[in-house]
Structures are given as structure tokens and as C-alpha cells.
């Protein structure tokens, strides 16, 4: 298969100066090269994305009819628990860490991460988490069935009586994943603070680096709380302590505080890098500087700060006193201000540009539209009286899937297409990319939009059976879900074929501004022969000023 030449982009026949190791075995080794680790993260997490997707399709199959008839109730409960867990801890987190690993050193002009071996150790914990999670299907009693929140007392009930059960494995896996993420966070923050090229002040950093920096700071203050909660629950479950067990005088609501203190900010850990991907992509394909660069950069830090005081909005109906409900309503709504700044800045960047709708741009635009929708339903959910009605219904499920599929996954696709030539040294097929986009965009809306009317009508999440009047929208949602599943096929096909025999990519196929585009595709080991000296701000589209003093533009 040959690739269709990219419309409007010239592909000069220059040969990359030095090939990076083309030995595929390297990707299965304990490599300390941040680029190899980045791709290891991306490929591993995509595998688990497919696994989580299969679980989702079993669930959507079950929900085609009101009765619980496709799988047993316990199997359904295991499916939604593992779907949520896999998609968060084994897909969105690691894939974004993969991009951060690949891009941050390149974008700040460093030869590698600050702690390369720590980086490799952090990565190799991800397959361990995955093997544990998948292995839990084979223990007596099956995998965890208490939902990805694992609220006690349900998560403390152990009908098998075995010490090794799905819930114990789940907690161990989550704790290991937390340790891996803390390692990553320490590494990223150190790298960004200490290893920027000369001349790269904070306000000359690309926004992707700002996004990663803000997100990793959240990891540093949030993850200890989650890990503590998980360990306490593990002790309750295995040795019979009574932190959260009400039968022994414990308080199950405390677990909710521990859990959400991290797990709401976790959403921003995922979405800040995706916002940052938008900020990288819109200027390139609009041929304009990012509008309001400094404000957009600072808004990432603001989101990270505010994220620390919003967690109780998950607990409005958990016996939370009125005054607390109202304070957290206001702080939650405040998140919309820095987020709104970003959205308006992207729209202003696109406005009046010279748009080229390549696949990455299509994905980024589609994701932006779906994010605006998610933001609006998010404001509705933060309002206490509305939340009292729709909390724990499909309205919430629809909202966060617009965030996590409509925005995060679509944003990840945008990033994969955009940096594919850089990572592999090959061009992808534009026409297959567009087919993928339209299938994914239609599938996402068909799948998740019907969840909003269902939730407003009162259909609950996590149910294996439901009242017949909810069937119509459920069938539409299921069909959308199956379409989404299918949409990954052209993507996989495109990636595999293009990586093997796509057209050779030049160093800078998109004529983008940024340090990563100044090195060959794929970049050589250690990235830069000479560390670049930064002399201007990023996103200088239309200004024709050089970015560096010593590297060829």
C-alpha cells in the first residue's frame, strides 16, 4: 500500500541524518531512552484500550434489552468495574505519560529525562498492573465487582472467603500504578524545572510542557491520598482493621474523601496534557500563533490549584452538610473560568487562520466541540440541586464519556497522527485517517449523547437491567458503542501498514515550529548533537523569526 501524498504539503526527499535504532527488539528491552519508553507506554496502553473496549461492548450488548440476559449479573458487575479501571489506569494515564515521555525532553531541548532508569522502572510497572488486573479474572470469585470507586462496605464484602480475591488484587494493582505514577511525576517535574535548554524561560516553554508540568504537580499532591486510602481499604479487607467498615465502627464516607481527593483531580491529570495537545495542534494547522499564550499557560496552573478543592462535588448526596455542598459547588464552577479561557483562546487561534484539515486537525476540532459540550454538562452537574437529581445516573456517565472519549481519546488520536511521522519516520495514510475520524466522531456522539436523556429520565449507572421505557436510547447508545469499537480497525490498519511501509517522513512534514521538528524523524538517540539555544517564544507562525540560535531552522 502506498500513502496518498498529503494535500498541500511538500515532502522533500531528504534522508534523515542518523537513523535511531530500527531494531524492533529494543521496544521489548529495558531501554532508558525516553523515546523508546514513550512508545512502549503508547503501545502497551493502546493494547489495554482495546481490552477495556471489549468490556464496554459486552456491557453495551447487555444493555440492548431491559432484562439481564446476556451475561450473569456478577459478570456484568466485573465488566464495568474492570472497564473503568483499565480505561483510566491502563489507557488514559499511561498513554499520556507516553506522549509526555516522548515529547518533553525533545521540546525543552534535553537529551533525556532527569532520571532515565527511574523512568524505565516506572514504565515496567504498567505491564505488571495490567497482568494483575487481567489475572484477577482467573481467581475464584472473579475480578473486583465493586466499581472503579470501590466504595466500602460493598468492596469489603468477600463472599468467597479467600484471602486472594479480585478486590485484593485490584487494590494491589491500583497501589502499584500509584507508585509508578509518583515516580513519573518526580521525574517530569525535575526534568522540566532543571533541564530546559539555555534561553528557555518558563514563558518560552511550549504549552504541551506546561500541561504536563501542571498535571504532574497534581499527581504529587493527590496520589498519596489515593494510595493511603487504597492501603487502608486493603488492611480492612485482609487483616480486619476497621477504618471504613461500619459494622466495626468505621466510617465508609472517609474512604470517599480519600478517593475523590485524588480521583477528581485525576481527571485534570488526564485532560491538562490533552488541552496542551490542542494548544500544540491548532497553531500548526491554522498557521497562526497561539492566541493569548501566557494566559493559556497560567490557566493550566490555575486548574491544577483549583482541582485540589473540588472533590466533594462527587459527594453532594453522601450525607454532606449543606454548607459544604455549597462551598464545593462554587469552587467546582470556578474551574470553568481557566478552562473557558483556553477554549476561547483556541477559537481565536483558529479564527482568521489558514486552516488545513489534516487528520490531526480534524480530531482536535472534533474533540474541542465535544469538550465544550462536556464542559456545559459539567457546570450543570456542579449545581447542587441539579446534581441531586442526576447524580449516579446516565447523565453523569454521558458527561464523563464526553470528557474521556470525546475529548481525551480523540485528543490522543490527534496527537498520535500529528507526531506519527516524528516517532516512526514514516507518513500515515491521510484517507484512512479521515475514515477513522468520521467513524469515531459519529460513534462517540451516537454512543454518549443518548445517555443524557436517559439520565434526565432517571436511568441509573451500573445497572445490568432497567425499565423498558429506557430501551430506545439504550439501543442507539449500544449501536454507537459498536461503531466506536469498529472505528479502531482503520486506525490499527493505518498505523501498522504505515509504520512498516509508509512514505519516509521528513524532519518537519507539517512545517511546525518547535524543537522536536528540528531533529530528524525519528530523532537520533540523545536527540540533539548540540543543545539548542532558545532565542524566541514558541508559536511564531507568520513572524519568520528563528527559534534557536545554533540549530538549522
Amino acid at each position: 500500500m502506498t500513502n496518498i501524498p498529503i494535500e498541500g504539503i511538500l515532502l522533500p526527499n531528504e534522508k534523515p541524518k542518523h537513523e535511531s535504532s530500527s531494531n524492533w527488539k529494543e521496544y521489548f528491552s529495558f531501554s532508558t531512552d525516553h523515546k523508546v519508553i514513550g512508545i512502549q507506554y503508547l503501545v502497551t496502553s493502546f493494547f489495554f484500550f482495546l481490552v477495556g473496549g471489549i468490556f464496554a461492548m459486552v456491557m453495551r450488548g447487555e444493555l440492548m434489552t431491559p432484562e439481564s440476559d446476556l451475561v450473569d449479573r456478577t459478570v456484568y458487575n466485573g465488566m464495568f468495574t474492570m472497564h473503568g479501571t483499565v480505561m483510566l489506569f491502563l489507557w488514559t494515564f499511561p498513554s499520556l505519560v507516553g506522549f509526555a515521555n516522548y515529547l518533553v525532553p525533545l521540546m525543552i531541548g534535553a537529551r533525556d529525562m532527569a532520571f532515565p532508569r527511574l523512568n524505565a522502572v516506572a514504565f515496567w510497572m504498567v505491564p505488571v498492573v495490567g497482568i494483575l488486573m487481567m489475572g484477577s479474572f482467573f481467581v475464584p470469585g472473579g475480578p473486583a465487582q465493586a466499581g472503579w470507586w470501590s466504595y466500602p462496605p460493598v468492596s469489603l464484602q468477600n463472599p468467597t472467603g479467600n484471602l486472594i480475591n479480585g478486590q485484593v488484587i485490584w487494590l494491589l494493582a491500583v497501589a502499584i500504578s500509584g507508585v509508578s505514577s509518583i515516580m513519573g511525576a518526580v521525574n517530569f517535574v525535575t526534568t522540566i524545572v532543571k533541564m530546559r535548554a539555555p534561553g528557555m524561560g518558563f514563558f518560552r516553554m511550549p504549552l504541551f510542557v506546561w500541561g504536563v508540568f501542571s498535571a504532574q504537580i497534581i499527581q504529587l499532591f493527590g496520589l498519596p491520598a489515593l494510595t493511603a486510602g487504597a492501603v487502608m481499604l486493603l488492611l480492612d479487607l485482609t487483616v480486619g482493621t476497621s477504618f471504613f467498615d461500619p459494622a466495626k465502627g468505621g466510617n465508609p464516607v472517609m474512604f470517599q474523601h480519600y478517593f475523590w481527593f485524588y480521583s477528581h483531580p485525576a481527571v485534570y491529570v488526564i485532560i491538562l496534557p490533552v488541552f496542551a495537545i490542542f494548544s500544540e495542534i491548532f497553531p500548526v494547522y491554522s498557521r497562526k500563533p497561539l492566541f493569548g499564550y501566557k494566559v493559556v499557560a497560567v490557566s493550566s496552573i490555575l486548574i491544577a490549584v483549583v482541582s485540589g478543592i473540588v472533590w466533594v462535588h462527587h459527594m453532594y448526596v453522601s450525607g454532606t452538610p449543606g454548607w459544604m455542598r455549597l462551598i464545593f459547588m462554587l469552587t467546582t464552577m470556578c474551574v470553568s473560568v481557566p478552562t473557558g479561557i483556553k477554549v476561547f483562546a483556541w477559537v481565536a487561534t483558529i479564527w482568521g487562520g489558514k486552516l488545513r484539515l489534516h487528520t490531526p486537525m480534524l480530531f482536535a476540532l472534533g474533540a474541542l466541540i465535544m469538550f465544550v459540550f462536556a464542559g456545559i454538562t459539567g457546570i450543570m452537574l456542579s449545581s447542587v440541586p441539579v446534581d441531586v437529581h442526576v447524580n449516579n445516573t446516565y447523565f453523569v456517565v454521558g458527561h464523563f464519556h464526553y470528557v474521556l472519549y470525546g475529548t481525551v481519546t480523540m485528543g490522543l488520536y490527534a496527537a498520535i497522527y500529528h507526531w506519527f511521522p516524528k516517532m516512526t519516520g514514516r507518513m500515515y495514510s491521510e484517507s484512512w485517517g479521515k475514515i477513522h475520524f468520521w467513524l469515531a466522531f459519529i460513534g462517540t456522539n451516537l454512543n454518549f449523547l443518548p445517555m443524557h436523556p436517559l439520565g434526565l429520565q432517571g436511568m441509573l449507572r451500573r445497572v445490568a437491567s432497567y425499565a423498558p421505557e429506557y430501551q430506545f436510547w439504550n439501543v442507539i447508545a449500544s449501536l454507537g458503542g459498536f461503531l466506536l469499537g469498529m472505528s479502531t480497525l482503520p486506525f490499527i490498519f493505518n498505523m501498522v501498514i504505515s509504520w512498516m511501509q509508509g512514505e519516509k517522513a521528513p524532519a518537519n512534514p507539517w512545517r511546525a515550529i518547535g524543537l522536536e521538528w528540528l531533529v530528524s524523524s525519528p530523532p537520533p538517540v540523545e536527540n540533539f548533537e548540540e543543545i539548542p539555544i532558545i532565542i524566541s517564544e514558541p508559536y511564531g507562525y507568520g513572524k519568520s523569526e528563528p527559534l534557536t540560535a545554533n540549530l538549522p531552522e
Partner: protein
Amino acid sequence: MKIQKILNILTLLTGAIAVTFTSIWIGKQAYSWLPPQAAAESLLIDDLISFLVTLGAFIFLGVTSTLIYSVIFHRAVKDDFTDGPPIEGNVTLEVVWTAIPILLVFWIASYSYQVYEQMGIQGPSELVHLHNPLAMESAYAAPANALAEPVEKIDVLAKQWAWVFHYPERDITSTELHLPSDRRVRLALKSQDVLHGFYIPAFRLKQDIIPNHAIDFEFTPILAGQYRLTDSQYSGTYFATMQANVIVESPEDYQQWLAQAATQKPSPAKNQAASEYAQTSNQSVQTGWVTVPPAAPPLVNSPG
């Protein structure tokens, strides 16, 4: 050039007017997306939802129509490899689009706060005695003297996986929740085992039930009819089956039902979780994993 400018302003104005009217229309539709308004609180919440949908539709349509306009009219011409105008920012514009969301947030928050105050639904028990039922006055059109009457008190027990309602005045138990219309009701929510959630979509009301915590919950049903109560907090294997009928009827019918139920001897109620569990345990091939056995079906005067 001048005509071009006037045309641009006209396009913008037409667009803004179209977006405004469309969002007002969408906001009105919001009522039809919701279940019947069976409690006084639902009237307040639905108005708030409609308001938020209107505002949200305005923002969504404003942003997407700008984007779609750009995608259609700001495309690069084939073989034009030049860059767009290098506009890096505009302080006035940035201040305006920061200030407007801040004002909107305070507007939405204060409106939500007012609605929440008027609902007076309670929650944890500590503050119950400070509650003033008259705060509900503006919420619905029922005669004011109805509010002065004593609240109806009912105990609600949730367990894996059944609801049991106890009417202390006559010491009656039931698996159906009967409520008099236009009376303030106070429920004492209790859980026997795990977290459960009390949720009646037609009332728009929800409250988690936490073991070892007494939680009072107040509201006012206003529309006679039959509705569904569901468990809204995931409670394990048979979570989806944990439902009950809610019957709102006139105070006279309600008293009659109480009197009639009082004459009946307690008998075991129907329970979907228990019967499904018995069925799957008898299967020769086990298709699922082990589960917590459901509690025995409750003994009630009125099994519904």
C-alpha cells in the same frame, strides 16, 4: 471595503440573534426531557435545569458556529503555503472573556443556592430541628394551611436488596411507599448493610443512606400517581433489582390504605433478588461468580 465591514457586522448580528432564539427554544424543551413533576421540589429543579440548558445551549452554539464558520470560510487555498496573520493576543478581549465567565459562575451559583435553600431537603440528622417548613411556601401552589399540618413520618430501611417502609404511627410495614399528596413528608433513612441511595426520579430527589447514620430526608409530593423508587448508590450484585413502587395519593386515600394495611397479618414480600439468587444457585452450570446472598424477603403487612 466599507460595505464588507457592514456585511460582517450584519452577519454577526444575525448569527447572535439566531443563536439566542435557538437556545431559548432549546431551554423550553428541557422540561419535556424530564419525568413528571411529582414533588414540589421538582418544580424548582426543573426551572433551574431549563435555565442552565438555555445558557449552555447559547455557549455551545456560539462556540461551535464560530468554529464551523472558520472551517468553511478560513480554509487555506490550495498551494498557498503562507502563514495567517500573526495575532498573538488582545488584552481587552482576554479580560472580557475572563470576566464574563466569572460573573456567569456567580449568577449560576447564587441561583442554585436559592433553589437549594427553598428545597430544604435536609440530609444528615444534626440540623433537623432548625428546619423551617415554611421555607417551602413559594415552591408550589398548594393551600398554605396544608403546610401547617404535621409532617408525615416514615422509616425507610434499605438492605441488600430490598426496601422496607415502616409507618410508626400505626406500626405498619410495607414494600410499597405510600405518600399523601400535598403534605410535607419526613423520612428517616437507615441502611442495614452497605451504602444505598434513595432516589425517586419523578421527585428529582436523592440521598445516600449510610450504615450507622440516621439521615432525615424531607420533601413534599404534589401529584397523585405511581412512581419508581430506585437504589442510586451501587450496592452489589442485585443492585439493579432494588426498586419499589411509590404511590402518591390524596390524604384520605392514604389514611384508608393505612387502616386497611393495619388489618393484614405480616407475610413475606416478593423479592426479585432472592428469587434470582435461588434460581442461579440451582443451575447445573454456573455462569457467574459467587455473590453475597440476598437478605431474606421482608415480612410486611402490605406486600404490594
